[in-house]
Protein backbone atom coordinates (compact mmCIF):
# COMPACT_ATOMS: atom_id res chain seq x y z
CA UNK A 1 0.00 0.00 0.00
CA UNK A 2 1.28 3.43 -0.89
CA UNK A 3 0.96 6.32 1.55
CA UNK A 4 2.42 9.81 1.60
CA UNK A 5 4.69 10.10 4.64
CA UNK A 6 5.68 13.69 5.39
CA UNK A 7 5.19 14.60 1.75
CA UNK A 8 7.03 11.61 0.29
CA UNK A 9 5.57 8.44 -1.16
CA UNK A 10 6.26 5.28 0.88
CA UNK A 11 5.28 1.66 0.43
CA UNK A 12 4.12 -0.04 3.62
CA UNK A 13 2.60 -3.38 4.62
CA UNK A 14 0.87 -2.47 7.88
CA UNK A 15 -2.55 -0.85 7.72
CA UNK A 16 -3.01 0.00 11.41
CA UNK A 17 -1.36 3.33 12.18
CA UNK A 18 0.41 2.22 15.36
CA UNK A 19 1.95 -0.74 13.51
CA UNK A 20 2.75 1.33 10.45
CA UNK A 21 4.74 3.71 12.67
CA UNK A 22 6.85 0.76 13.87
CA UNK A 23 7.34 -0.39 10.28
CA UNK A 24 8.46 3.14 9.39
CA UNK A 25 11.14 3.10 12.15
CA UNK A 26 9.37 5.41 14.59
CA UNK A 27 9.44 2.83 17.40
CA UNK A 28 9.44 4.57 20.80
CA UNK A 29 9.92 7.97 19.14
CA UNK A 30 8.21 11.00 20.70
CA UNK A 31 6.05 12.06 17.78
CA UNK A 32 2.62 13.43 17.02
CA UNK A 33 0.63 12.17 14.07
CA UNK A 34 -1.97 13.45 11.66
CA UNK A 35 -3.74 11.52 8.92
CA UNK A 36 -5.20 13.48 6.03
CA UNK A 37 -4.67 16.72 7.95
CA UNK A 38 -6.51 15.46 11.05
CA UNK A 39 -4.71 15.02 14.37
CA UNK A 40 -4.61 11.41 15.57
CA UNK A 41 -3.66 11.13 19.23
CA UNK A 42 -1.31 8.40 20.45
CA UNK A 43 -4.20 6.58 22.12
CA UNK A 44 -6.17 6.49 18.86
CA UNK A 45 -3.37 5.10 16.69
CA UNK A 46 -4.20 1.44 17.22
CA UNK A 47 -7.78 2.11 16.07
CA UNK A 48 -6.90 4.00 12.90
CA UNK A 49 -6.60 2.12 9.64
CA UNK A 50 -4.60 3.64 6.82
CA UNK A 51 -5.81 3.52 3.25
CA UNK A 52 -4.00 3.70 -0.05
CA UNK A 53 -3.00 7.31 -0.78
CA UNK A 54 -3.47 8.55 2.79
CA UNK A 55 -1.31 11.47 3.84
CA UNK A 56 0.49 10.76 7.11
CA UNK A 57 2.31 13.52 8.96
CA UNK A 58 4.75 12.51 11.70
CA UNK A 59 6.05 15.47 13.67
CA UNK A 60 8.67 15.66 16.38
CA UNK A 61 10.11 18.32 18.71
CA UNK A 62 12.25 20.79 16.83
CA UNK A 63 14.00 24.10 17.41
CA UNK A 64 11.63 27.05 17.45
CA UNK A 65 11.45 30.75 18.14
Amino acid at each position, binding site marked *: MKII*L*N*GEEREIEERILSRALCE*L*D*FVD*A*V*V*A*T*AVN*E*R*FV*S*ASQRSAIELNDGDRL*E*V*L*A*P*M*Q*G*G
Partner: protein
Amino acid sequence: MQFYDVELASPLMLGTAQYPSPAILAAAVQASGAEVVTVSLRREASGNLAGQAFWSIIRDLGTRVLPNTAGCRTVKEAVTTAHMAREVFGTPWIKLEVIGEEDTLQPDVFGLVEAARILTEEGFQVFPYTTEDLVVAERLLAAGCRVLMPWGAPIGSGRGLNNIFGLKMLRAHFPDVPLVIDAGIGLPSHAAAAMELGFDAVLLNTAVAKAGDPVGMAKAFALAVEAGRLARHAIPMEPREMASPSTPVMGRAMLA
Protein backbone atom coordinates in the same frame (compact mmCIF):
# COMPACT_ATOMS: atom_id res chain seq x y z
CA MET B 1 5.21 37.75 36.90
CA GLN B 2 2.50 35.20 36.33
CA PHE B 3 1.37 33.42 33.19
CA TYR B 4 -1.76 31.30 33.67
CA ASP B 5 -1.08 30.58 37.35
CA VAL B 6 2.61 29.90 36.73
CA GLU B 7 4.92 32.22 38.62
CA LEU B 8 8.17 33.07 36.83
CA ALA B 9 11.13 35.02 38.17
CA SER B 10 12.92 35.77 34.89
CA PRO B 11 11.28 38.14 32.39
CA LEU B 12 13.32 36.62 29.56
CA MET B 13 11.94 33.89 27.32
CA LEU B 14 14.29 32.39 24.77
CA GLY B 15 13.83 30.67 21.43
CA THR B 16 15.85 27.54 20.66
CA ALA B 17 16.45 27.92 16.90
CA GLN B 18 19.50 28.88 14.82
CA TYR B 19 22.25 28.30 17.40
CA PRO B 20 25.66 27.20 16.13
CA SER B 21 25.45 23.97 18.14
CA PRO B 22 23.30 22.21 20.75
CA ALA B 23 26.00 22.86 23.36
CA ILE B 24 25.90 26.60 22.67
CA LEU B 25 22.10 26.55 22.82
CA ALA B 26 22.22 24.92 26.24
CA ALA B 27 24.90 27.32 27.51
CA ALA B 28 22.98 30.34 26.18
CA VAL B 29 19.75 29.27 27.89
CA GLN B 30 21.66 28.83 31.13
CA ALA B 31 23.39 32.21 30.82
CA SER B 32 20.09 33.95 30.02
CA GLY B 33 18.39 32.73 33.18
CA ALA B 34 15.29 32.03 31.06
CA GLU B 35 12.77 29.73 32.69
CA VAL B 36 10.79 29.29 29.48
CA VAL B 37 12.08 28.28 26.04
CA THR B 38 10.08 28.10 22.85
CA VAL B 39 10.03 24.96 20.74
CA SER B 40 8.33 23.79 17.60
CA LEU B 41 7.18 20.70 15.74
CA ARG B 42 8.54 19.65 12.38
CA ARG B 43 8.49 16.56 10.20
CA GLU B 44 10.61 13.74 11.60
CA ALA B 45 12.59 11.67 9.09
CA SER B 46 12.12 7.97 9.75
CA GLY B 47 15.37 6.31 10.72
CA ASN B 48 17.08 9.64 11.51
CA LEU B 49 14.98 10.90 14.44
CA ALA B 50 16.77 14.26 14.86
CA GLY B 51 13.84 15.53 16.87
CA GLN B 52 14.40 12.97 19.59
CA ALA B 53 17.96 14.19 20.22
CA PHE B 54 16.77 17.79 20.33
CA TRP B 55 13.99 16.93 22.77
CA SER B 56 16.50 15.22 25.03
CA ILE B 57 18.61 18.41 25.14
CA ILE B 58 15.59 20.54 25.98
CA ARG B 59 14.43 18.23 28.74
CA ASP B 60 17.90 18.37 30.29
CA LEU B 61 17.64 22.17 30.49
CA GLY B 62 14.89 21.81 33.08
CA THR B 63 12.98 24.83 31.76
CA ARG B 64 9.31 25.07 30.86
CA VAL B 65 8.57 24.81 27.16
CA LEU B 66 6.28 27.03 25.17
CA PRO B 67 5.47 25.24 21.89
CA ASN B 68 4.69 27.44 18.92
CA THR B 69 2.58 27.12 15.80
CA ALA B 70 5.23 28.86 13.70
CA GLY B 71 4.62 28.84 9.98
CA CYS B 72 0.88 28.19 10.23
CA ARG B 73 -1.18 30.29 7.86
CA THR B 74 -4.68 29.09 8.53
CA VAL B 75 -6.82 28.59 11.63
CA LYS B 76 -7.13 24.86 10.88
CA GLU B 77 -3.37 24.42 10.53
CA ALA B 78 -2.69 26.31 13.76
CA VAL B 79 -5.34 24.43 15.74
CA THR B 80 -4.14 21.02 14.49
CA THR B 81 -0.53 21.94 15.24
CA ALA B 82 -1.56 23.01 18.74
CA HIS B 83 -3.22 19.63 19.31
CA MET B 84 -0.08 17.84 18.18
CA ALA B 85 2.13 20.07 20.33
CA ARG B 86 0.03 19.50 23.45
CA GLU B 87 0.45 15.77 23.10
CA VAL B 88 4.18 15.82 22.37
CA PHE B 89 5.24 18.47 24.88
CA GLY B 90 2.70 17.68 27.57
CA THR B 91 1.69 21.30 28.21
CA PRO B 92 -1.49 23.31 27.65
CA TRP B 93 0.68 26.33 26.79
CA ILE B 94 0.75 27.31 23.13
CA LYS B 95 2.41 30.26 21.44
CA LEU B 96 -0.21 30.85 18.81
CA GLU B 97 1.04 32.17 15.49
CA VAL B 98 -1.20 32.56 12.46
CA ILE B 99 0.90 34.28 9.84
CA GLY B 100 -0.88 36.56 7.39
CA GLU B 101 1.84 38.15 5.30
CA GLU B 102 5.11 36.76 3.97
CA ASP B 103 7.45 39.77 3.91
CA THR B 104 6.74 40.95 7.44
CA LEU B 105 5.48 37.68 8.95
CA GLN B 106 2.73 39.87 10.36
CA PRO B 107 0.05 37.96 12.24
CA ASP B 108 -3.30 37.36 10.58
CA VAL B 109 -5.17 38.84 13.51
CA PHE B 110 -8.58 37.67 12.26
CA GLY B 111 -7.43 34.05 12.10
CA LEU B 112 -5.55 34.52 15.36
CA VAL B 113 -8.67 35.54 17.29
CA GLU B 114 -10.65 32.64 15.83
CA ALA B 115 -7.93 30.08 16.58
CA ALA B 116 -7.49 31.51 20.09
CA ARG B 117 -11.20 31.10 20.79
CA ILE B 118 -11.21 27.48 19.61
CA LEU B 119 -8.11 26.58 21.58
CA THR B 120 -9.10 28.26 24.86
CA GLU B 121 -12.46 26.47 24.70
CA GLU B 122 -10.48 23.24 24.42
CA GLY B 123 -8.47 24.04 27.55
CA PHE B 124 -5.33 25.48 25.97
CA GLN B 125 -3.55 28.39 27.61
CA VAL B 126 -2.88 30.60 24.65
CA PHE B 127 0.01 33.04 24.21
CA PRO B 128 -1.05 34.88 21.04
CA TYR B 129 1.59 36.47 18.83
CA THR B 130 -0.21 39.63 17.87
CA THR B 131 0.26 43.27 16.91
CA GLU B 132 -0.11 46.26 19.24
CA ASP B 133 -3.68 46.85 17.98
CA LEU B 134 -5.94 47.58 20.96
CA VAL B 135 -9.11 46.22 19.38
CA VAL B 136 -7.44 42.94 18.46
CA ALA B 137 -6.10 42.77 22.01
CA GLU B 138 -9.65 43.19 23.37
CA ARG B 139 -10.89 40.41 21.10
CA LEU B 140 -8.09 38.08 22.15
CA LEU B 141 -8.91 38.66 25.82
CA ALA B 142 -12.59 38.09 25.10
CA ALA B 143 -11.59 34.84 23.37
CA GLY B 144 -10.03 33.67 26.62
CA CYS B 145 -6.37 34.68 26.31
CA ARG B 146 -4.81 35.76 29.62
CA VAL B 147 -1.47 36.83 28.11
CA LEU B 148 -0.78 38.99 25.05
CA MET B 149 2.39 38.94 23.01
CA PRO B 150 2.61 41.98 20.72
CA TRP B 151 5.47 42.20 18.26
CA GLY B 152 8.20 44.76 18.69
CA ALA B 153 9.14 44.51 15.02
CA PRO B 154 8.93 41.78 12.34
CA ILE B 155 10.29 38.39 13.37
CA GLY B 156 14.06 38.14 12.97
CA SER B 157 14.44 41.78 11.91
CA GLY B 158 16.23 42.97 15.05
CA ARG B 159 14.71 46.42 14.64
CA GLY B 160 13.60 46.78 18.24
CA LEU B 161 10.37 48.52 19.25
CA ASN B 162 8.91 49.96 16.05
CA ASN B 163 5.83 51.59 17.54
CA ILE B 164 6.62 52.89 21.00
CA PHE B 165 3.40 54.92 21.12
CA GLY B 166 1.23 51.90 20.27
CA LEU B 167 3.01 49.72 22.81
CA LYS B 168 2.61 52.38 25.50
CA MET B 169 -1.11 52.57 24.70
CA LEU B 170 -1.39 48.80 25.01
CA ARG B 171 0.36 48.83 28.38
CA ALA B 172 -1.79 51.68 29.65
CA HIS B 173 -5.00 50.13 28.33
CA PHE B 174 -4.40 46.71 29.92
CA PRO B 175 -2.54 47.42 33.16
CA ASP B 176 -3.28 43.99 34.64
CA VAL B 177 -2.74 41.73 31.62
CA PRO B 178 0.68 40.09 31.32
CA LEU B 179 2.25 41.56 28.18
CA VAL B 180 5.27 40.08 26.43
CA ILE B 181 7.19 41.72 23.60
CA ASP B 182 7.62 38.90 21.12
CA ALA B 183 9.74 39.32 18.00
CA GLY B 184 11.91 42.05 16.56
CA ILE B 185 14.26 42.50 19.51
CA GLY B 186 17.83 42.93 18.25
CA LEU B 187 19.80 44.38 21.14
CA PRO B 188 19.78 44.25 24.94
CA SER B 189 18.90 47.95 24.89
CA HIS B 190 15.65 47.09 23.05
CA ALA B 191 14.80 44.56 25.74
CA ALA B 192 15.61 47.07 28.48
CA ALA B 193 13.38 49.63 26.74
CA ALA B 194 10.51 47.14 26.63
CA MET B 195 10.84 46.53 30.36
CA GLU B 196 11.09 50.27 31.06
CA LEU B 197 7.77 50.68 29.22
CA GLY B 198 6.28 48.30 31.74
CA PHE B 199 6.11 45.11 29.71
CA ASP B 200 6.26 41.98 31.81
CA ALA B 201 8.66 39.98 29.67
CA VAL B 202 10.43 39.73 26.33
CA LEU B 203 10.67 36.72 24.06
CA LEU B 204 13.58 36.62 21.64
CA ASN B 205 15.63 34.16 19.65
CA THR B 206 17.65 35.47 16.71
CA ALA B 207 19.34 38.28 18.66
CA VAL B 208 21.02 35.69 20.87
CA ALA B 209 21.36 32.76 18.46
CA LYS B 210 22.91 34.83 15.66
CA ALA B 211 25.22 36.90 17.87
CA GLY B 212 28.96 36.35 17.43
CA ASP B 213 28.97 35.00 20.98
CA PRO B 214 25.47 33.72 21.78
CA VAL B 215 26.33 32.87 25.38
CA GLY B 216 27.77 36.33 26.02
CA MET B 217 24.73 37.94 24.39
CA ALA B 218 22.36 35.81 26.46
CA LYS B 219 24.04 37.14 29.59
CA ALA B 220 23.79 40.71 28.24
CA PHE B 221 20.04 40.25 27.71
CA ALA B 222 19.62 38.84 31.20
CA LEU B 223 21.23 41.96 32.66
CA ALA B 224 19.27 44.25 30.33
CA VAL B 225 15.84 42.93 31.27
CA GLU B 226 16.75 43.12 34.92
CA ALA B 227 17.97 46.71 34.51
CA GLY B 228 14.80 47.65 32.62
CA ARG B 229 12.57 46.07 35.24
CA LEU B 230 14.38 47.80 38.11
CA ALA B 231 14.15 51.12 36.25
CA ARG B 232 10.41 50.70 35.75
CA HIS B 233 9.89 50.01 39.44
CA ALA B 234 12.10 52.98 40.37
CA ILE B 235 9.79 55.32 38.37
CA PRO B 236 11.85 57.13 35.70
CA MET B 237 12.02 60.93 35.62
CA GLU B 238 9.86 62.85 33.17
CA PRO B 239 11.84 64.05 30.13
CA ARG B 240 11.91 67.82 29.50
CA GLU B 241 12.48 69.95 26.46
CA MET B 242 15.11 72.31 27.91
CA ALA B 243 18.32 71.83 29.86
CA SER B 244 18.17 72.06 33.63
CA PRO B 245 21.48 72.23 35.53
CA SER B 246 22.01 69.28 37.81
CA THR B 247 24.83 70.96 39.75
CA PRO B 248 23.44 73.59 42.16
CA VAL B 249 23.69 77.17 40.85
CA MET B 250 23.64 78.60 44.37
CA GLY B 251 27.13 79.15 45.72
CA ARG B 252 28.81 79.18 42.33
CA ALA B 253 32.01 81.24 42.43
CA MET B 254 32.20 84.44 40.38
CA LEU B 255 35.42 83.90 38.51
CA ALA B 256 34.59 85.41 35.13
